[in-house]
């Protein structure tokens, strides 16, 4: 009790303390809880699309498997690895901030950003392949109408539902990519301030909660990868 009182006195005049908080501890609690609540809203946001995916995959299993088999699981797996690695470097960045190692912190944040960009580049390559194969659904690109000729259709798979799979694929991975881009932006700002020595053992909440966000976006991908890329491989081989 006495100890926490001393900590309170100590941080009550910290330059990062905002006027409406009593001390840094309260400010940190608020920031962390705020991010968790925000992530809950994100789960609900993606939840709508996961529901649509589940419904139509159950309804049209053959079409979804056919469309899924045409995705490059190699690139998907590569991206999964890239993101897991980026979560590791992000965790190291938070640790470096907590222990006050400025140089490590900047390097780790930089690595995380680079890995995030790598993910986006691989994603762009995949999107381009779909464009070339005429697999962009609907009239998203006028003049390049959807044509499932390149997709090996399993029996009972209707081209209409293959198109629907690709729409769900683009909606979910697209929304995920937007979150990645925002994450890269946020981490760049954090890296800028980290380089100027703003974060240390006393005050590092922004690094922590950006890390929470980054891990969350990674976890979304951990769900997307098997659901979208791996769902019907065995059907292709008569299993």
């Amino acid at each position, binding site marked *: 009790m006495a100890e926490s009182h001393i900590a309170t006195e100590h941080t009550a005049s910290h330059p990062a303390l905002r006027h409406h908080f009593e001390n840094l501890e309260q400010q940190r609690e608020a920031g962390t809880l705020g991010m968790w609540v925000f992530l809950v809203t994100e789960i609900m946001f993606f939840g709508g699309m996961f529901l649509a995916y589940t419904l139509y995959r159950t309804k049209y299993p053959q079409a979804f498997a056919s469309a899924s088999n045409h995705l490059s699981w190699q690139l998907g797996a590569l991206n999964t690895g890239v993101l897991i690695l980026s979560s590791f470097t992000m965790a190291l960045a938070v640790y470096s901030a907590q222990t006050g190692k400025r140089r490590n912190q900047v390097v780790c944040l930089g690595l995380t950003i680079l890995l995030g960009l790598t993910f986006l580049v691989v994603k762009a390559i995949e999107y381009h392949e779909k464009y070339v194969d005429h697999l962009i659904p609907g009239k998203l690109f006028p003049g390049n109408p959807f044509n499932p000729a390149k997709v090996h259709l399993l029996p009972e798979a*209707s081209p209409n539902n293959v198109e629907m799979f690709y729409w769900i694929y683009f909606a979910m991975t697209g929304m995920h990519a937007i979150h990645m881009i925002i994450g890269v932006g946020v981490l760049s700002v954090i890296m800028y301030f980290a380089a100027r020595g703003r974060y240390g053992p006393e005050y590092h909440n922004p690094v922590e909660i950006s890390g929470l966000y980054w891990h969350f976006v990674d976890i979304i991908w951990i769900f997307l990868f098997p659901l979208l890329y791996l769902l019907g491989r065995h059907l292709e081989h008569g299993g």
Partner: protein
Amino acid sequence: MKAFETFETPTAARVNYLNAQYGLKSWLLTKDHKRIALLYLGSVTFFFLIGGIYAMMIRLELLTPQGDFLSSATYNKVFTQHGIIMIFFFLIPAIPASLGNFLVPMMIGAKDLAFPRINLLSWYIYLLGGVITIYALLAGGIDTGWTFYAPYSTTFSNSYVLATGVGIFVSGFSSILTGLNFIVTIHTMRAPGLTWFRLPLFIWAHYATALIMILGTPVVAITILLLAFERLAHVGIFDPAVGGDPVLFQHLFWFYSHPAVYIMILPAMGVESELIANFSRKNIFGYKFVAFSSLAIAVFGFLVWGHHLFVAGQSVYAGLIFSFLSFAVAIPSAIKVFNWTATLYKGSISYDTPMLYALGFIGLFTIGGMTGLFLAAVAVDVHVSDTYFIVAHFHYIMVGGTLLGYLGGLHYWWPKISGRMYPEGWGRFSALVIFVGFNLTFLPQFVAGYLGMPRRYHAYPPEFQVFNVLSTAGASILGVGLVIPFIYLLWSMRYGKRAEPNPWHLPGLEWRTASPPPTENFFATPVVTWEAYEFAPPEEMQVIGRFKEETEHA
């Protein structure tokens, strides 16, 4: 009365949140939750006015059975726009974003909400959503009904569905941010000594509301976004033409939009608990039951959306379960009504304007809630689906509940917000006019609906005319009743009697500081040593900090 004698200095001489800074910039860039609350108050009033104009057009059209005032196409747009403006831009933000924004920090003894910049951002997002929607209305309007059912909205409607959808998508984020701010603030920023069970019930209600805001709104956001893409690029999951299922849209839409009804009514219930306890000068009956019933409504509210799909081809078994759960949600609502009534018993009740609204609320909410039970029964619901019975039912909840709660709360806290008293005589008069006008408008609609008058048509069989004439007459009275407070509240901001810090002599934290409060709400961080609604002799209700600066400077 010793404690109150510390306020001898005229209140205007002091620096408060209203006169701390002047100029447009000091308002548009403010991070003070009280100023943001006023920004919201102004904007929701503006949207209420627009929605009200559409309501009057509907009532004028329905005065005669022929459908001669508006064409059917225009009428479709008018009722759609009435619904969209009233629901998304008035009812949902009305109490939480204005009264809640003002009072949540004050009632828990905090200097501000946890994230003041996000709070300001939420207002700008709301405004942006509003501007986009108004653009859609001016450009040509929207005619899908406020429910946007696919495939009409995605394929067949020739109106501005896309722009309106974007407007609602955007404004949803203001709701999410407000909810996030409330949850974090209530968890982390309560004053020392203010335990969860010492919180005013207004706070519990807003906590429950915030839960719905953060869990429900993202779902409707993604739904509307997918709908917009479906319309824009003809890619989709809702339109049967591409193999989609329009019932999926209805499920996703109502997964938010039914709980949204509780976003509207829960804050009003919070206001109601404050008014009933404080104007009976009694501790509320069954504090914990009222507090947890708010959470129960928030939880149950997420499990009943299927009662909007009884006639949409949902399976019979799903219908049965949703019917049962819809009955279940009546339990926490009834707990509240019974506990309010029990609180009145042997209380020293005063019939000031806020209390008149509160008593009206109990009656109207009870009618709205009981008719809700009719609709939860599948067989009855099939009979009255898409009739005026439904229209009357939800107006009893939304207008009889939310609007009355909002007006009651606005009068109750007006002295704190503006530092001025409103004219009590006019207040009581308009409360009565609104009550009479409201009932005259919507009671006949129950009958017309039960007899089979369908909603959303501009013409109707002549035998329903008598109900519609009554309804239109009531709407005119209601309209007049709503204009009166608008005028006298504006008038009182300049000419009203100056308010004491605690004009109603109540124990709540918000009454233990100046009217209007200083920018940081209290002169010293309050330490709470009393229970909620703990009525003590006035001299024991200490004022926090006793306006230290003043006594020092004097």
